[in-house]
């Protein structure tokens, strides 16, 4: 794992089934909108020794026509929405700030948990994303400092605290610990 600069990490990793799933979906998604991957899969990409049943993705608010085009492409590539079938129903969930999930046809796990930005922290994650290069693939993930702060201040489950500990250790020479504290202060009392 090489930290090329503040916004690029290069990993020459063997791909897991979860990686294939994520990269395949992102390949479709990025043709239609910006995105950022957050939460557990970020730690897993960096080597955390655990699995996950879902991959969390945040996108900016998009209009219905763009969503229709994206959903058509998602379906054409062998995925379906677990929550609903009609594009308008799915779009309504997104408008209500609810996450929707996409999986490969006839499966439930793994799936993509897909939601719109709903506050300034989602916006920061989207704006300050970093790039992880894995062979010929490239994937946008949330800034590691934000991930750590969010997991330690907001999510706080044992799994999330373990993820934060792992990221802090594996990337310790490359993290801005003052920025983690700044994000924690911003998050304090917000959720």
């Amino acid at each position, binding site marked *: 794992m090489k930290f090329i600069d503040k916004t690029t990490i290069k990993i020459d990793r063997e791909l*897991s089934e979860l990686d294939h799933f994520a990269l395949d979906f992102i390949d479709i998604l990025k043709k239609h909108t910006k995105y950022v991957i957050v939460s557990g899969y970020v730690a897993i990409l960096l080597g955390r020794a655990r699995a996950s049943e879902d991959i969390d993705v945040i996108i900016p608010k998009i209009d219905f026509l763009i969503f229709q085009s994206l959903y058509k492409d998602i379906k054409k590539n062998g995925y379906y929405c677990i929550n609903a079938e009609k594009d308008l129903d799915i779009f309504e969930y997104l408008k209500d700030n*609810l996450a929707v999930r996409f999986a490969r046809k006839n499966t439930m*796990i793994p799936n993509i948990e897909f939601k719109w930005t709903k506050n300034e922290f989602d916006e920061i994650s989207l704006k300050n994303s970093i790039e992880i290069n894995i062979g010929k693939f490239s994937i946008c993930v949330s800034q590691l400092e934000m991930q750590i702060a969010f997991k330690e201040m907001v999510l706080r489950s044992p799994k999330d605290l373990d993820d934060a500990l*792992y990221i802090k250790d594996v990337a310790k020479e490359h993290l801005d610990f003052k920025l983690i504290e700044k994000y924690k202060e911003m998050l304090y009392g917000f959720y």
Partner: protein
Amino acid sequence: MGFIEENERERRSFIRKWAEYVRTHEDKDWSHQQNIIINSALKSANMTREQFFKMKKETHYIKY
């Protein structure tokens, strides 16, 4: 120290050791080992829509 605290201490100690291993070994090495966990977990995961949403506490928004 109680069982829960001891369990947590051991778990976090392993996480730190594994992070050190990842930092000091080739990507192909650690990812190969990590993938054994990930791929086997996904292979054994088999749920219905209802079971999955119940687990996630998201049963209130399914339209099928």
